[in-house]
């Protein structure tokens, strides 16, 4: 396990999550460093999604969830009762498995997070939206059709729009839950390039069940199996020299 980082962005301490009676995450402790990409891989149902959703407290919008343990973002436990969960979710943004733009215009999709914070001035909005769309690599494709419905975009464009929407509120961390699993290979490649680009300025945590993707985009990789953190190492190490027999079996395709 990696014990020392130059700067830790998120620290998970003895995290346990249950859904009703099912113990989904078992005593997870790990650190996410500032900037760069950390990927979490593992077979279906291993708790990958639950793990990243625990970082911005999105598990609690689902029925029957219960969390114990600590998640520290910049040293502050986000499960403390006096934490502003809405501010937390602004700082720790999220992109979902299936692109989920609102059935609104492209402009209004990116504007959403800004509007709920009370930004309503057209000039300000336009500026921030342009910057966000540029960062997400979508600006050139949509700049002349900002008022069209976001649902007219292709799947890959929709996912980049969702990334732009998350970027607009100026988060520090971006969580991505299998962001390319609904996309074709070309769109996937674009998103992966984008992820590398974003890692320069943001702490990116990506969940994937695609090992090649983990190998391609991430600096660090964690392997999760039935709710337990099996191995967590720099990406080259985990693929070339897995320490745990389960990791090795997973990487060589014996299960998954």
């Amino acid at each position, binding site marked *: 396990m990696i014990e020392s980082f130059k700067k830790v962005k998120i620290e998970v301490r003895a995290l346990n999550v249950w859904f009703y009676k099912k113990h989904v995450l078992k005593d997870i402790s790990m650190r996410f460093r500032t900037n760069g990409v950390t990927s979490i891989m593992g077979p279906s149902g291993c708790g990958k999604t639950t793990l990243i959703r625990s970082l911005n407290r*999105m598990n609690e*919008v689902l029925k029957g969830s219960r969390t114990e343990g600590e998640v520290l973002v910049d040293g502050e436990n986000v499960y403390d009762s006096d934490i502003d969960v809405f501010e937390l979710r602004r700082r720790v943004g*999220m992109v979902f498995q299936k692109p989920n733009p609102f059935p609104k215009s492209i402009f209004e999709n990116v504007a*959403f*997070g800004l509007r*709920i914070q009370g930004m309503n001035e057209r000039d300000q909005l336009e500026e921030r939206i342009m910057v966000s769309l540029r960062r997400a690599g979508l600006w050139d494709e949509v700049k002349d059709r900002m008022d069209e419905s976001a649902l007219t975009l292709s799947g890959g464009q929709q996912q980049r729009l969702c990334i732009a929407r998350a970027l607009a509120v100026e988060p520090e961390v971006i969580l991505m839950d299998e962001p390319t699993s609904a996309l074709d290979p070309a769109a996937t490649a674009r998103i992966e390039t984008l992820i590398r680009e974003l890692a320069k300025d943001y702490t990116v945590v990506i969940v994937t069940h695609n090992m090649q993707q983990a190998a391609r985009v991430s600096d660090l990789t964690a392997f999760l199996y039935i709710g337990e953190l099996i191995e967590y190492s720099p990406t080259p190490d985990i693929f070339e020299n897995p320490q745990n027999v389960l990791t090795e079996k997973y990487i060589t395709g014996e299960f998954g």
Partner: protein
Amino acid sequence: MNKRSKETLFFQILRLGTYVTVSTVVALLAYLVYMGSDMLSFSFVTSFPREGMTAGGIYPAVVGTLYLMALVLLLSLPLGVAAAVYLSEYAGERESRLVKIIRIATANLAGVPSIVYGLLGLGLFVLFLGFGFSLLSASLTLSLLTLPVIITASVEALKTVPHSYREAALALGATKWQTTKRVVFPHALPGILTASIIGLSRAAGETAPIMMTGVAYFLSGLPQSVIDQFMALPFHIFALSTQSPNPDLTRPIQFGAVLVLLLLVLSMNLVAILLRTYYRRRLS
């Protein structure tokens, strides 16, 4: 009987069912139009009844029904939508036994006979709360009758909003209220409006509840406030055909009034359909 002729037989039975239903409606409408269309004129809907209601128009009944609808809409729409949003968006998380009971009760209330609502209105609004035999009591009673329809349908409309929209909003730091107001509600609005209009058009034709709470057989003027009595189309039709000293003389007016009431209700339903198509197109 072989498979194929069995298939034909059942197909014909099913088709017959459809034809019987459709032809009944068409025949009814055709007959009403045939009997009543002569009466339809601008002066028919804008003049008071004359000569013991055997002549003249149905103006006060039309106005009374419109007043009633406006008040029912004003009372039941905000209340019904608020209840639906609570049940669907807020109470749903905990899904306590109480919430389940409320849901079942609401669904069942929609099936309670209207005469029961009439009695409730008489006891509660007219007598106990002292609103008297009035437009107010009748509107409140009809609102109670419309509420379950609005709530049930609005909850259904809210349920059709994909969960992923809610998650997208919450993950951006929106509060539950912001999510509901900006994402969930606009998406469910066409469904809510459609259901409300249909609920309202059902209330427009109700006779029993208003008979017990505020409708008048005949008034020489329009109601001046919500505590006045009023005339209304469905009761006017009932009165003309059963309470008049000479029902035969009032027959043409009866047909005219029925036709006006039907046109009113059908045009409300038409508005609902148009709204739904419009929003559906805009969303896709």
